[in-house]
């Protein structure tokens, strides 16, 4: 009883800010609610419209591209950075702090920094042009149809990868040093040690990072909304930004709720796969 009393404040907060809005979202996804006033029941209409909505599928494709970028670039950089950091003892703390700083800076600040750095007329491109390297001069990274999505992903990656390094570094330090010694005695080179000792040793954390990356990539919103708002011409639109526009610019809150549930369903599927693999005996 005492335990329940201690938990009560947390339960109340959770009911108010998570359970309540979740149930409301499920209900409103079956209505034509505009976000204000009454809502009329429309059954599955929102869902059938989403299936036929080309903008939704285009945005979802951008989410998948985003996921592919974040499953490779920051994870690869994080692994490499952590592995290299684990090999040094002097100045390791300095590098750890330097890598982690972008993670603790607010996304709005990070985005503003890179908007200035990559500005086509007064950014790094024009600075390089003044010293005889003209290739990036006038390149509009966030305004180009071809570059906008990878450019925003680059900025988000810049803030994220340092955190991944520290996660991997922490777990790397728990890998038994004797395993490396044994591998060396067997004639394993650095790469073979990495594949056969390091990766198995950090597998649980690696899978956790992959899981977080997939879910985070499905829910991505902040950097894209701040920098490009899904533009130009929708090339960096993801479901999160599309949903926001549906709810707060087109006042189709019911439709946006259905989109949100679709995203939650996909995230739920990823977690189910993870749990299923764990049940099957995968050490993750």
């Amino acid at each position, binding site marked *: 009883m005492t335990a329940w009393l201690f938990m009560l404040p947390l339960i109340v907060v959770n009911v108010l800010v998570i359970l309540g809005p979740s149930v409301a979202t499920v209900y409103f996804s079956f209505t034509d609610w505009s976000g204000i006033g009454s809502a009329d029941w429309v059954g599955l209409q929102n869902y059938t419209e989403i299936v036929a909505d080309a903008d939704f599928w285009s945005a979802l494709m951008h989410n998948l591209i985003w996921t592919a970028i974040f499953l490779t670039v920051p994870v690869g950089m994080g692994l490499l950075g952590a592995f290299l950091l684990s090999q040094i003892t002097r100045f390791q703390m300095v590098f750890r702090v330097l890598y982690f700083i972008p993670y603790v800076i607010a996304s709005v600040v990070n985005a503003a920094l890179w908007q200035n750095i990559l500005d086509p007329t007064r950014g790094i491109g024009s600075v390089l042009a003044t010293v005889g390297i003209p290739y990036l001069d006038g390149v509009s990274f966030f305004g180009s149809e071809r570059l906008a999505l990878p450019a925003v992903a680059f900025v988000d990656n810049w803030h994220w990868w340092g955190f991944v390094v520290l996660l991997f570094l922490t777990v790397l330090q728990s890998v038994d040093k004797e395993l490396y010694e044994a591998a060396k005695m067997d004639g394993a080179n650095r790469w073979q040690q990495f594949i056969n000792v390091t990766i198995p040793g950090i597998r649980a954390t690696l899978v956790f990072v992959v899981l977080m990356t997939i879910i985070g990539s499905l829910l991505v919103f902040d950097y894209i909304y701040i920098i490009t708002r*899904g*533009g130009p*011409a*929708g090339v960096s639109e993801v479901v999160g930004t599309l949903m926001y*526009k549906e709810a707060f*610019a*087109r006042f189709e809150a019911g439709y946006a709720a259905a989109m949100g549930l679709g995203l939650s369903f996909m995230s739920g599927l990823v977690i189910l796969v993870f749990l299923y693999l764990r049940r099957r005996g995968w050490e993750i």
Partner: protein
Amino acid sequence: MAAVPSAFNAPLPFTESDFPSSMDERVARQLAALSQATNEGNLGYTAWTFWPAKSDLYIQEEMQKVLTGDITAAEFCEGLDEEFTKERKEGAVPKIIKPAGA
């Protein structure tokens, strides 16, 4: 380019002489004319500032596609017509406020 930005149209009384000489004189003239008109009570709202929500977002989003060449201007207008007609039928077009003295 003028040293003083031209995105300045606060409803304050001023004349061309109030602007610094570094300002583009065409911008200064335009702002002074707006100020004069406002002070004489000649203000109002034009119809195109009153798009309903979906049409408004359509213009912002789809115009980019016209600029990037993904759709033609005619396709843009057709889409806008469709969106606006639907919203007008739904009664979502905001009432246009009559300017003073109209």
